[in-house]
């Protein structure tokens, strides 16, 4: 088991390295750098001015050198411009040459400086990630129990009317992406002209003081899309368990139906959904980006959109590192949890 986890961590590191390199490559393509130069300098720069701006800040160096600097295995780029301004990859505004560290990268724990927000990247990421984690927590609290309940109720008696109606509900919810359900919810529950006016259409205030009124709709929107899939998986695994021999034996012994479901079927039926729930995290990340832009909630997804829209290289790299690790760690947990829950499976 230890060796398995160790090897998985190795693969994870390799994956993260490859992915950050891809992101690095894409963000460092010339048109992207040109856009960066123009948004940081001014919009009417000529081609030569763009080139000097990039040369002066080390953006024109070979790709591997720049990647090495970001990792912290190559010394940072520094230069004193003609007008006495001191610039470089490790230099924060206002720093003198003496204060600037020689290396600044991931290895040194320095995530860089955001050109969009004019602040340290790790500060931004932590603050915004907090908002998103809070959102995710409520999504999980809403989504997982209700999805399991729907799935178990539907799978308990295959082909019954409850099964038909709950299965239709889960198909409907998997067919509704967040931007569709979000729009429909806003139209039905918040519109100021027609509709019910039960909730608020934006979650901007929810960042400081979340209430049921301004926070429920974003949570519901994300939860609904994932719910259907988990419910369908739970239903499939529940119907399979309900046809197993030991359930028939229990019935013949005269155990009551609720007891069969709760004591005999449920535990075995919940192994498969566990994996599915864990693998839902990467999808939730997508939902988070959509819902955060739809409800104007400034979290991790909002940072992603802002960073990508402004080609903020270091922020974008940090965002991709975080999201890649979320994906890989949930995969790892789902593998380990699967072995733990199902003693029939051995890794070695």
């Amino acid at each position, binding site marked *: 088991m230890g060796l398995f986890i160790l090897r998985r961590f190795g*693969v994870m590191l390799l*994956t993260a390295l*490859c*992915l950050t390199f891809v*992101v690095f490559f*894409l*963000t460092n*393509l*010339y*048109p*992207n750098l*040109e*856009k960066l130069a123009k948004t940081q300098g001014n919009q009417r720069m000529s081609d030569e001015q763009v080139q000097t701006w990039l040369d002066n800040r080390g953006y024109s160096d070979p790709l591997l050198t720049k990647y090495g600097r970001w990792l912290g295995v190559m010394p940072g780029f520094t230069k004193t411009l003609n007008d006495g301004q001191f610039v470089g990859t490790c230099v924060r505004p206002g720093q003198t040459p003496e204060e600037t560290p020689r290396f600044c990268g991931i290895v040194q724990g320095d995530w860089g400086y955001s050109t969009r927000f004019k602040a340290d990247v790790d500060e931004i990421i932590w603050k915004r990630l907090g908002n998103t984690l809070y959102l995710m927590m409520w999504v999980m609290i809403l989504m997982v129990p209700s999805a399991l309940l729907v799935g178990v109720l539907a799978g308990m008696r295959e082909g019954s009317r409850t099964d038909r109606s709950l299965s239709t509900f889960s*198909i*409907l919810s*998997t*067919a*509704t*992406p967040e*931007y*569709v359900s979000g*729009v*429909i919810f*806003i*139209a039905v529950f*918040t*519109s*100021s*002209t*027609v*509709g019910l006016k039960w909730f608020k*259409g934006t979650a901007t205030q929810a960042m400081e003081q979340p209430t049921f009124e301004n926070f429920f709709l974003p949570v519901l929107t994300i939860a609904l899309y994932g719910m259907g899939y988990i419910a369908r998986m739970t239903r499939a695994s529940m119907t399979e368990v309900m046809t197993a021999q030991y359930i028939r034996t229990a019935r013949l012994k005269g155990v009551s139906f609720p007891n069969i479901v709760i004591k005999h079927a449920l535990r075995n039926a919940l192994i498969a959904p566990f994996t599915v729930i864990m693998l839902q995290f*990467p999808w939730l*990340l*997508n939902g988070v*980006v*959509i819902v955060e*832009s*739809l409800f104007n909630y400034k979290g991790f*997804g909002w940072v*992603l*959109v802002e960073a*990508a*829209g402004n*080609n903020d290289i270091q922020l*974008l790299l940090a*965002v*991709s590192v975080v*999201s*890649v690790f979320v*994906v*890989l760690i949930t995969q790892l947990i789902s593998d380990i949890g699967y072995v733990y829950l199902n003693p029939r499976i051995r890794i070695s």
Partner: protein
Amino acid sequence: MEPLGTFEIIIRVLYQLSSVWIALLLLFALSIAFKRRLGLYGKLFDSPIGMIGFGLVMFWVFVGIFGAMDLIITHDPLSQVSGMKNKVPGTPLAGAGEGDYAWYLLGGDNLARDVFSRVVKGAWIVVQIAPLATLFAFMVGITLGLPAGYYGGRLDTFLSFLANLILAFPVILLFYLLVTPEIVATGLPTMMAIVLFMFPIIFLGVLLNSRYRTQPAFRTPLLIGVLGFALWLYLALISENGYLVRSIPGLPSVLDPFDIPGGILVVFVSVVFVNSPTVFRIVRGLAMDIKTRDYVAAAQTRGEGPWYIMLWEILPNARGPLIVDFCLRIGYTTILLGTLGFFGLGLPPESPDWGSTINEGRKLLSIYLHPALPPALALLSLVLGLNLLADGLREESLKD
């Protein structure tokens, strides 16, 4: 002219769609009449869920096709009519001339364009791109997944690592990195298209070659014909103004019947790119399962080549789950296209596709509902139809 009431709007919309109803009726009547002779497709008409799903899907397919033939739309989806900004459904057209349709059936959007016509035109974009992109993703996934599952070993490890690499990317981040005007300017999407579009040709070539290898007299002309046509399509798809990439000459412009705008190409390529690793994993899993069967062993004993076994023994026996996944994946691709439109990536801003229309409509959503709701419901019903269709197919294919 009086504004239309709700009932009248519904009647007029239904009337406007009459060509679609006729086509649907014909299709269903013919299919049900001959369903015993149509294999899996015919069996679909035994399951009510499958029929509803198929009906929904074909509804949008016909709307898309007839919409592209200008049979349904009442106004030009791009033209703006002054005085019609954000007007509610059923508003009479301001300053209607002779021959103009007299109402905006589903109202006007915030740029005073007809919502109804835009939704209909948006269906054509989805109906064009989603199935084709899914098909390409399947070609890539099958061509790489079969050998990975069949041979296993290093090849499998390497390809699986690559697939997991792409899957570890959050889709939206990938879209934000790939589908931007700056990336289109670098020519990267064309490069990716050159690589990705090669797979269908390889697939076709290997498929036919492995089957007719023993009859060279038949195989050689067949291969030349099919591959020649495929290559011409390939070059026509990729080359622009007679060039593949800026300096490499491709097809001369005379033989190049269509040019794909960079925006559409990048959307298409990135959707294929995102979908193919998942298909790869499914095909690989199926291949690993099926290669232990007796009929594969029999073919190996007969001395058939590995590609014959993969494509003519394993693949046909994996078709059930693959067809079901194909339907689900078209739905997922539709959702992805909507996501791209929602974030304003790729397609031009005035494009009538559903995602962009939802994105535009949501800005004024608390005051005007009608521009955003029709495309949202359209997308919902199409994806729902595809999911129901997949369910029906799964049920029917499990029966035999």
